[in-house]
Structures are given as C-alpha cells and as structure tokens.
C-alpha cells in the first residue's frame, strides 16, 4: 500500500514592522502639524492679503476672534448674526473675561473680515465692540510673500 505524503502548509507571514514604523511616523507628522486653534477660522471668509501681515512673535493675552462674512453678517461663538445683534455674544465674552479677573479693555478683538465686506460694516462692528467696553482691535490679513 502506498501512502501519500501529507503536504506541509506553509504560512507566509509578511514582515509588518516597516509598515507600522512608517504609519507611526505619518501619525506623528500629522499630529504635530494639526492646529486645533484653526477651528476659529471660517474657510468661507477670504482674507485680504498684505506683505506686512506676519504672525505675532508673542501670543495675545486675551484674543477674541470675530468674523465678518461677505454677506456682512458676523460669526461669533458659532453663531451667524447681523452686526446690530452683537450685544448678547459680546456680553458673554465680557462675562468670561471677568470670570478670569480680566477687563474688556485687556482683551483684543481680532476682526477677520472678508475682502468683499463693506468698510462701513467693519466700522459698525468696531462701534458695537466699543459699546461693550472693548478698545483694542486687530484687523487680520493673510500673509502675502513678495
């Protein structure tokens, strides 16, 4: 009687180490570059460009970002409001500052306005903030290399 040889099952296992190494390096790369602070930048707003607009060397103490769309509405705290209805959100910002033992005068309002927004509306926005007690403003622009 003839016996057949039992076939050996060869399990080919690929070496996963280089792939895992590379994947971890990619994760580290994206983690370092990810800036959660960009959440306050609405992508629908096209900022004007300026060669002088460079990121500040030191961070601002109490920044408040207010965005003005091309429809001349204001984006603040996740809400879209007309310029005339800013009293309530600004009062909230004021209360938040006071809870940190700060005054509105210590804060800086950064205005991210669209290129097509009207200058008069930007000034109305500044006026509304002044009424709420804020006095320092920054007009934000995108850096343009020469």
């Amino acid at each position: 009687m003839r016996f057949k040889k039992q076939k050996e099952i060869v399990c080919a296992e690929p070496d996963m180490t280089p792939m895992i190494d590379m994947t971890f390096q990619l994760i580290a790369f994206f983690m370092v570059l990810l800036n959660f602070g960009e959440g306050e930048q609405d992508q629908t707003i096209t900022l004007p460009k300026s060669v002088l607009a460079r990121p500040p060397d030191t961070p601002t103490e109490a920044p408040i970002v207010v965005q003005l769309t091309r429809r001349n509405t204001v984006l603040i705290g996740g809400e879209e409001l007309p310029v005339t209805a800013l009293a309530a959100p600004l009062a909230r910002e004021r209360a938040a500052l006071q809870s940190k033992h700060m005054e509105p005068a210590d804060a800086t309002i950064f205005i991210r306005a669209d290129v097509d927004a009207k200058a008069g509306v930007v000034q109305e926005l500044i006026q509304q903030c002044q009424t709420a007690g804020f006095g320092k403003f920054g007009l934000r622009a995108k850096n343009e290399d020469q």
Partner: protein
Amino acid sequence: MKIRKSATTSVDKIEQQMTPMIDIVFLLLIFFMFSFKIASPEGDFNIKMPVASQVTTETETPAIPIKVRLRADAAGNLAAIVMNDRDLGTDFGQLQLQIISIVGGDAGPGSAADTTECELECDYHLRYETVIEVITAISGYVEGNQIVKLIQKIRFSPPRNSR
C-alpha cells in the same frame, strides 16, 4: 525507562495579535489626514479705538495729524485717495511716498513714526480689501526681509455716505 522531553528543545513562539493595533493606527492616521488643513500664516494690524470715556482721560502729547479720505465708486471699488485735502488718485505707492516724506527714516520711541497718527475716513460701501491695502501702505513696507515701520497709530473716523 521513560525519557523526558528536554525543556530546551521546544521553544514556543508566542505571537502577538497585531491586527487590532494596525486597525487603530490606520484609523488614527485617517483622522489626522482629514483634520489636516494647510493654512497660510495670518497677521494683524493693530487699530486703537478706545471707548469714549478713555479718550477724554488720555493726556498724551498731540500727534501730527494725517487725514486720509478714501472715496468709493458705486461698486465699492476705490475711486480716490485724498490725503490732507490732496488728491493722490488710486495709487497706493504715491500714498506711501507721501507718508515717507512726513515720517522719514525716523524710527524708535518718540520718533515721528511713533507719534504720528493717521485717521482713515472711508466711504461706507468701500471694499474692506482696499482698506487693508491702504493700511499696508501707511504702516510700512518690506525691504529685503525686514519690515520698515511707518505709522502705527491708525484710527477710523465715522464712515461717510452710508445711505
């Protein structure tokens, strides 16, 4: 006689299950890839607009006044730049030359650039982009890789032609 198996002869290889870890790692990678945005750097132009009560209590030395009037056409584009009642057309370079002629190369605390204040009077319908272009021309220029600062004190007067 019973022969015992030597302990050294059978090396059991314990293999870890890598699949769940690789799954999680790929999920993390996808999350970071989708969250990643290439954002160009942004900068600010400081505008001092103190509230009325603060203005009255300030006792600073009066600065050299420069008044820049920005006229807009019906579409909101720049129609004319008028600096201290002098029409400069729509040329930002001309405006900057005028500012340099006033401020000069003077810099540092107490200098003309430090004390000079510029008041912008814009038409209501003027495009914001133009305002930033004018502020850029007033506040400085780039020489090589260095920023040469001109006027830093910029304020707005109430807008014109709002109706």
